[in-house]
């Protein structure tokens, strides 16, 4: 059932690994062509996401599920912004640019700004020194919060250098180990996919 797509995955993946080692100009030209194809396919994948979003909200409106007027807002905005952007572009001076500056940008940044309140509330309620490890985490966090801002230097002139040491030594060691582990995991997953051992990305057979 999946033999064809699995062979495509193997051929493309193996080709890109081999082409990494071949510096010849013709080989790199083939490499560049494959990568440009992937760039274009990636764009369609993002478009697919927007279509799925449309379908989700259209279903809510069609069946008058609770909150459907809000879904209508989403659908109207999606169509309007897409249409204006495709016809007139998105550069400065266009309608979509104005919408971006007054709608997209403030809404996105404010949504994430809410996190400042929630992280403070969560730190007060849940950050507890229940054992040695939690205490170590808590103490380091407080030292970092105070030591990396201007007030830290006021309290103790050596604070910035001490926090720099925390980042340069224990933090570096742990993050390096994590990076090596993540790297090995990514390599093994990539090889499993290329060799056809891992096929979950193809979905279930019909």
């Amino acid at each position, binding site marked *: 059932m999946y033999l064809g797509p699995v062979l495509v995955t193997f051929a493309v993946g193996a080709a890109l690994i081999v082409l990494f080692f071949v510096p010849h100009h013709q080989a790199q030209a083939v490499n560049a062509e494959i990568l440009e194809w992937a760039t274009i396919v990636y764009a369609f994948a*993002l478009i697919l996401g927007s279509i799925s979003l449309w379908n989700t909200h259209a279903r809510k409106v069609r069946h008058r599920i609770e909150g459907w007027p809000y879904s209508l807002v989403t659908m109207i905005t999606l169509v309007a912004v897409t249409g204006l952007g495709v016809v007139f572009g998105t550069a400065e001076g266009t309608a979509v640019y104005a919408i971006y500056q007054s709608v997209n940008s403030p809404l996105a940044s404010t949504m*994430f700004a809410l996190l*400042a309140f929630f*992280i*403070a509330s969560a*730190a007060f*309620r849940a950050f507890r020194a229940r054992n040695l490890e939690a205490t170590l985490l808590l103490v380091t966090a407080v030292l970092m919060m105070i030591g990396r801002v*201007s007030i830290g230097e006021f309290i103790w002139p050596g604070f*910035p250098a001490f926090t720099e040491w925390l980042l*340069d030594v224990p933090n570096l060691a742990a993050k390096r180990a994590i990076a090596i582990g993540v790297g090995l995991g990514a390599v093994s997953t990539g090889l499993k996919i290329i060799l056809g051992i891992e096929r979950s990305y193809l979905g279930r057979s019909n």
Partner: protein
Amino acid sequence: MSWAQRLLSVDRRIIFVLIGLGTAIPLLMPVNLPITVTPRVEAAYQTIDTLPEGSRVLISMDYEPDTMAELNPMAIAIMRHCFRKKLKVIGMTLYPAGPGLVEPAMKAAAAAEGKTRNVDYVFLGYKSGFQTVMIGMGESIRQQYPVDFYKTPLDSIPVMRGVNSYAGIDLVVNLTASSAADYWIQFAASRFKKKLVLGATAVMATDYYPYLSSRQLLGLIGGMKGAAEYEKRMDLFGDARRGMDAQSLVHVIVSLLVILGNVALFASRRSGGDGTPARPLGGPR
């Protein structure tokens, strides 16, 4: 109910008000606390500062509005530095919502330093794919970007004359809030051996210290604090520097909240309680 249990049961909206005031008051009544430039930001500054005049700097501004507070000030300060050093800037973004931020940032930096598009800088625009774009540019920039953001063919842009791969680029700067940093390290720095400076959000900055040690990164600017340090080094007074007083005060508030929460917990346990609030903490009803 003991004081400790009352404290642990406080409505979280009171904490929200504290944070809000801690942010607003220093902005209304600034003290302008001194900022010290840390070694990693100084290293980033020196990497750009030591480039000869006319060098080409590729700046990939891979961020969206949700992280622009930290990365936009960095972008403007770095571009102004490049313009002051008479370097040529090639701007691009790998995030779909990036052009709306990158375009005005480039224009603002260029206007502040009296620079002209296509002569002193170019904005290539957005391209999807992350890694495929980074590797593809190693062979042919024009294959990935046939035209710039304004639909001008690259061949007719003076800044891009003679530049069709990393070979024509002297430094890569990546400003990002995501794993794009990992990919720039993998491809621009490791595979194509280009000098790389990273500007990252504070959330991820601590993850990249191993790459500084291995010299895969030559400098690291972390968060709004890093942006403020770069502005200080550039003798600019931008949004990042303006926000540092508020940053200090809110950090003190959060630290005190953490300490207070633990003190209240231990006090509550001593008085026979188990530390849990007497009633559910306040919030939206």
